[in-house]
Each structure stands twice: as C-alpha cells, then as structure tokens.
C-alpha cells in the first residue's frame, strides 16, 4: 500500500508530533508514504467562502501532483481531506466545471484528469490495514485507559458524501478499543468543537469548546483523542485560553489519535513531541509504560 502523503499547512507548521507519529506508525503497518513536491494549501472553508472557482483550482492543483505520482492521496487533516475529496468528486462528475478549472490550472502548467482518490488516515487504517492487523501490532495495550474520542465534523459529515466509505462516529471508538483502551461517551459528543469560528468570533468559538470540555470533565475521562488538528487546537491550546479568559481549569490531556496508536505500538514520544502539548500528557505516557 503506497500513498501520496498530503500534509496540509497546519500540521507541518504547528503539530509536528502528529506528523512524526504518522510517519512512524504507518510504515510499521505496511503503508508506504511518499512525500508530495510543491503542494499548496488545500482550500479550507474560509477560502472556499471567498472564491468558488479559485478553491476548485487550488485543491485540483494538489490533486494533479498526486495524479502525476500515480498514487492516491492520504490526507492527515480532516478539513484537507474533505476539501480535496469534495473537489475531486465535483471535477470527476461535472465536465463543464472541470474544463473551467483546467483553464485556470493551465497557468500552473497542470491538468486535472480525475485518476486518483482521496483518503484520510482513518480510511487507510480501517480499510487497507484493518483493525485485526493493528491489534496484532499492539505491543503495549492501553490498559483500559478511559479515552473520549472527538472524531471531528469533516471526517463524517455530510453523511451522503461519505456514504461510499460507510464511516460514522464510532470509527474512532473502534480504533481506541482495538488499542486496548476504553472509549467513553460524553454529552454533545457529535457537536462541532468550534474551531472554524476562531479569529472570526472568538467568543463563540471558545463557548463551544468550553461546552465540550465541561462535558468531557463530567464524563471523567483520562484523556481525549482527536483526529483533526483543528479540534486539537481547540481542546489543547483552547484549555489555556479558557483558563485565562473564563477562569475554568480542566487539565484534560489531548492526544492525536496517531500518537495513541504509536504508544500502543511500542513507539516512544520524544521530548519535542511531548512539549508541543500545551496541556501536559506526561501522566498518560507514564501510565502506559
């Protein structure tokens, strides 16, 4: 299994631990990740809002790079995944739009052909690798760690778009269970973390993440695990912001799901990776050793 690895902009700039954990665990599970040359931003929702055709072209340019490599894309970030996937499907389906976009792509000397697919890391883990194989590679089962999952909106919504994949909110719970931890339910589990309103209406964004964090606190979890780097920021950095602005303290460690996976597979999280977490995760790491 070989994929073109699409990193996006947020993870390589601010969440190296996510990237490092992915690069360690995937090859150990038999997935080869090839770096893409010259990728740009995928066109997340703030950009989609400003220029429709511009967004299509922006995302399509990245798809063309993968097409040239002859590989499907594996995206790390939920928003990147959905943006690329939506554009891929739209352009494959609609010839007129495809022609318009190719006209714009010509200034970048590229042409969209529609020969590749876009997947998220979760897809690769669940479909290509399979939970059974993951279970067999777990050398340090997570000992009933009480884990709340935050799947993130764009991995599962809108359902129609993901109908072919058949993925729902339970997908991350299943993975967590496979690693030996115990997924815990909490109020408002399926509601958005508020990330997209950051820098647009910080008060609302913070109110939403506060609501989720207090639900997590009520559920008495050991940690929360995220799939989307945006949700991660809302919960991790978000806890510091809430502490200073709303005077509420939660102290709930936030881990990327690939970090949990790498711990269960026996890999260590290095110093710089640990220090990235604004809410320290040391006690979780220690618990698992």
């Amino acid at each position, binding site marked *: 299994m070989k994929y073109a690895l699409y990193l996006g902009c*947020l993870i390589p*700039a601010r969440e*190296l631990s996510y990237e490092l954990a992915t690069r360690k665990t995937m090859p150990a599970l038999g997935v080869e990740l090839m770096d893409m040359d*010259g990728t740009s931003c995928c066109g997340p929702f*703030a950009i*989609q809002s400003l220029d*429709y055709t511009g967004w299509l*072209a922006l995302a399509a340019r990245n798809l063309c790079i993968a097409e040239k490599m002859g590989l499907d894309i594996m995206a790390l970030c939920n928003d990147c995944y959905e943006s690329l996937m939506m554009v891929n499907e739209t352009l494959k389906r609609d010839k007129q739009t495809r022609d318009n976009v190719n006209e714009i792509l010509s200034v970048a000397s590229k042409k969209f052909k529609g020969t590749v697919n876009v997947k998220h890391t979760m897809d690769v883990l669940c479909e290509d690798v399979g939970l059974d194989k993951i279970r067999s590679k777990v050398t340090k089962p997570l000992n009933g760690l009480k884990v709340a999952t935050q799947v993130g909106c764009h991995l599962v919504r*809108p359902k129609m778009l993901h109908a072919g994949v058949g993925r729902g909110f339970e997908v991350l719970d299943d993975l967590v269970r496979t690693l030996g931890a115990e997924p815990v339910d909490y109020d408002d589990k399926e*509601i958005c973390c508020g990330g997209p309103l950051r820098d647009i209406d910080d008060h609302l964004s913070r109110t939403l993440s506060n609501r989720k964090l207090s639900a997590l606190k009520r559920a008495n979890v050991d940690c929360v695990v995220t799939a989307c780097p945006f949700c991660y920021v809302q919960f991790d950095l978000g806890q510091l912001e809430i502490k200073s602005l709303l005077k509420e303290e939660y102290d709930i460690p936030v881990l990327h799901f690939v970090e949990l996976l790498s711990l269960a597979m026996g890999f260590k999280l290095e110093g710089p990776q640990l220090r990235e977490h604004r809410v320290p995760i040391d006690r979780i790491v220690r618990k698992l050793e």
Partner: protein
Amino acid sequence: MTSAESDLEFIMSQIHARRRDPDFMQEVANTPRGEGLLSCIQCGRCAGSCPVGRLTLKYNPRRLIEMVNLGYKWEALFELSWLCLSCFTCIDRCPQGADVGEVVFALRSIAAKDGNVPKGALTMAKNLVETGHIVNPTASVSKQRASLGLPVQEPVPEVAKMAKKTGFSKILGLK
C-alpha cells in the same frame, strides 16, 4: 394620527422597502453552492440541529434562508453568514436538500466580491496568495524539520498566478 406621525411612518416604510432586494433570492440561487435555497420549506430542522444556534440568538440557519428569501441582503450577507461553523449537521438532516450549510458559501462569496470579509479570513487569504499556504512554519520550526529530516514547506508562486486569473487577488486588494 397627526400629520407628522404619518410622515414618519411613510419615511420608515421607504427605508424598509429599500432595504429589501427582491432579486436577491434568485441571485443567491444562481451562485455556486446556493442552488438548494429554492427547496427550503422553512421547517426549522436545521435550526434545531445547529450548535451555534443553541448558543446565541445572533445566528439561525433557517432564519438565514428566510432573510435571503425576503431579500434582506444586509442581514444575510454580513450579520448571519459568517457565524456558520461549516459543521454540516444541517446538511445531514435537511429533508428537502436545501442545505443551508452550502448556501452559506454562496452568500459569503457574494459578500467577498465587495470585499466585505471578516479580518481573520482576509489574513488567511492574503497569506495564501502570497505564500501558497495559510499557515507558515516559523524559522525555528523549519530548522527543527530540517534536523529531523522532514520535508521543508516551500512557498508556491503558482497559487498567486492562479489567484490573479480567477480575480481572487483583486478581492484581497492585491495586484
């Protein structure tokens, strides 16, 4: 009613009438991602599902479509449409395929044509055109990446070229 009162009433009604644009609904329905608008039956299922709607009276997806239908351009474009999270819960539940979560994108692109965009989004967009990315690593992060053998994020000038071609850079006030 005195003559002064009826004058005032007349003036207010003129202000109200001018606030509304009877062609607005069709304009939005003809914009990409706005097509579902015409299917809305105002059932309110989206408003019952919206996480933002539960927290603030400021935003309500059903009311957003109502404002568009009535032609209240100002409210629809500038007050309401930027509070949507794009969480797509409304789209998951809309029985008619009106998909207000998609209509929001159409509205924002209309607002963007006149440059009426929240500052946060503008900053992201400018960064995108100038470097090809929304977020760029700091110098120390780049150094760290290099030392770990990770690929370094390069600027992508092709994005600026494409932005010029679609007219996107004009919106941002760039050349």
